[in-house]
């Protein structure tokens, strides 16, 4: 087995073994989807709440794995000197980053395999033609969120990083148009929320899986900007130990 695939396998195994990371990557998205998909209490603006919620929850799944899951794990690996120790093996930094990307993609695929069937069960019927665009948006979102998560992981100490990642997650969830539309926010907050990567991704996945021809150019621009800037900042500021 090659070094990169061995590394990626270990990263996935460790992620799936951590209870708190399972809660974050599967527990919370499934809970949000099922509860608010069945109980119509949120001002989703759609006939069936699942039509609004399912795309939002897919965006949330990407954010939880690429930003919080990756960021917390990497932060602790940094403080436990795992990254330092790996630096003395022939693996090399590009291969380590590659293994981490692969493990994020594997976990995201698992999330889709769980969340999409559940959404179907509670009545979600997105147009099949929208999936390529939705997946492209999720891929771009993965890059952006990984950049944000790794920026925090690379400069903050273990516990501070843990708190910062969870704090960001909550803010990006609440102001990301994931569980309720941005239009429900007061106007100044709504304007600010439009530049968040979570709102851009949720918007893109939602329009792709509702009306694929009308995805917003603004949302693509916002997400692409995050996807370029965040990894650059992470690469420039990251401290390996």
């Amino acid at each position, binding site marked *: 087995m090659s*070094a990169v695939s061995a590394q990626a396998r*270990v990263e996935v195994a460790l992620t799936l073994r*951590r209870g708190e990371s399972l809660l974050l990557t599967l527990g919370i998205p499934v809970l949000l989807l099922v509860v608010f998909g069945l109980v119509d209490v949120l001002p989703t603006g759609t006939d069936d709440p699942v039509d609004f919620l399912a795309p939002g929850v897919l965006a949330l799944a990407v954010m939880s794995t690429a930003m919080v899951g990756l960021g917390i794990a990497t932060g602790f690996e940094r403080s*436990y*000197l795992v990254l330092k*120790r790996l630096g003395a*093996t022939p693996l090399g930094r590009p291969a380590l980053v590659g293994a981490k990307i692969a493990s994020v993609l594997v976990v995201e695929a698992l999330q889709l395999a769980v969340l999409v069937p559940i959404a179907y069960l509670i009545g979600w019927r997105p147009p099949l033609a929208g999936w390529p665009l939705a997946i492209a948006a999720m891929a771009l979102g993965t890059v952006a969120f990984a950049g944000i998560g790794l920026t925090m992981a690379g400069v903050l100490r273990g516990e501070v990083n843990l708190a910062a990642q969870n704090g960001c997650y909550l803010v990006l969830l609440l102001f990301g148009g994931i569980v309720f539309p941005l239009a429900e926010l007061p106007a100044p907050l709504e304007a600010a929320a439009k530049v968040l990567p979570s709102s851009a991704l949720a918007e893109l996945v939602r329009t792709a899986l509702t009306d694929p021809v009308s995805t917003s150019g603004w949302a693509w621009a916002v997400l692409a900007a995050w996807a370029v800037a965040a990894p650059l900042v992470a690469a420039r500021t990251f401290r390996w130990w």
Partner: protein
Amino acid sequence: MAAIEVDELVVRYPARRGDPGGPTTAVDGVSFEAHAGHVTALLGPNGAGKTSTVEVLEGYRHAVGGRVRVLGLDPVTEHHVLVRRVGVMLQGGGVYPGIRVREAVALFCAHYGGRTRPDDLLERTGLTELAHRTYRHLSGGEQQRLSLALALAGDPEVLFLDEPTAGVDVSGRLLVRRLVRDLADGGRAVLLTTHDLDEAEKVADHVVIVDRGRVVASGDPHELRASGDRIRFAGPSGIDVAALAAALGAPVHEASSGEYVVEAAPEPQRLAALTAWLAQHDLPLADLRAGRQSLEDVFVRLTTEESAATSAGRRRRSR
């Protein structure tokens, strides 16, 4: 060519914010060599500069001055070549807390392209029974042994072991010592750091004693002990050391009140002269120690002499 060459190495740490002291010099002109087939111990108290020295050799840290070579290569610019030939054990950590023992060993074996078999490494380090235990559930000593197993995954020519027996129980210590001995006997160069004299004396072929970033002595443990041969005795304070020195033909000084040191090898003739002189002056002899000192005596003497000399120097400068 020596496997490890360190020549006038200088390592400095930048000043911490809010610390008026300026940059700290951790290593201040250290030179030594370590050879294949030998266990070399860097021995010194905490903060002596041992880890800083090893981290330069591992390629983690840049030297401010001097030159180091590992297998003839530069540890920083030729890091990618050296990582395949060198094994590293950090002073602590370095392993995923949630990983299982066998998983960790298999992962590191994969990083070196399967040069060693995970089960062999587990057996050599006595971890076979713990193969399915998670790292965070291992005792300190077991964690150290796992780190050592990981250092061996690439079947390295050179091994850097930073405090390999710290926190290891007695049986684990024996296992680590035997393993280190076998590695050296198999032609590897092993450089370990320790603040434990007993450890250095038992495992090393060559000891480099460092203190405050400088080498204060080096040699094989036997030589180091011999170099410090002297006679120590205790008696009433205030003995006329000049007269005694004249009688013995060797320098004598009162190290502390009532504790005397004769700077000469403990030959029977000289011991006889000493006791005779004391008898002649009607002085009681409370304690007499002659013979080989332990490495501990050498170590304590060297590191305290160094600090006495530096503080004396400081006093002179401040006048």
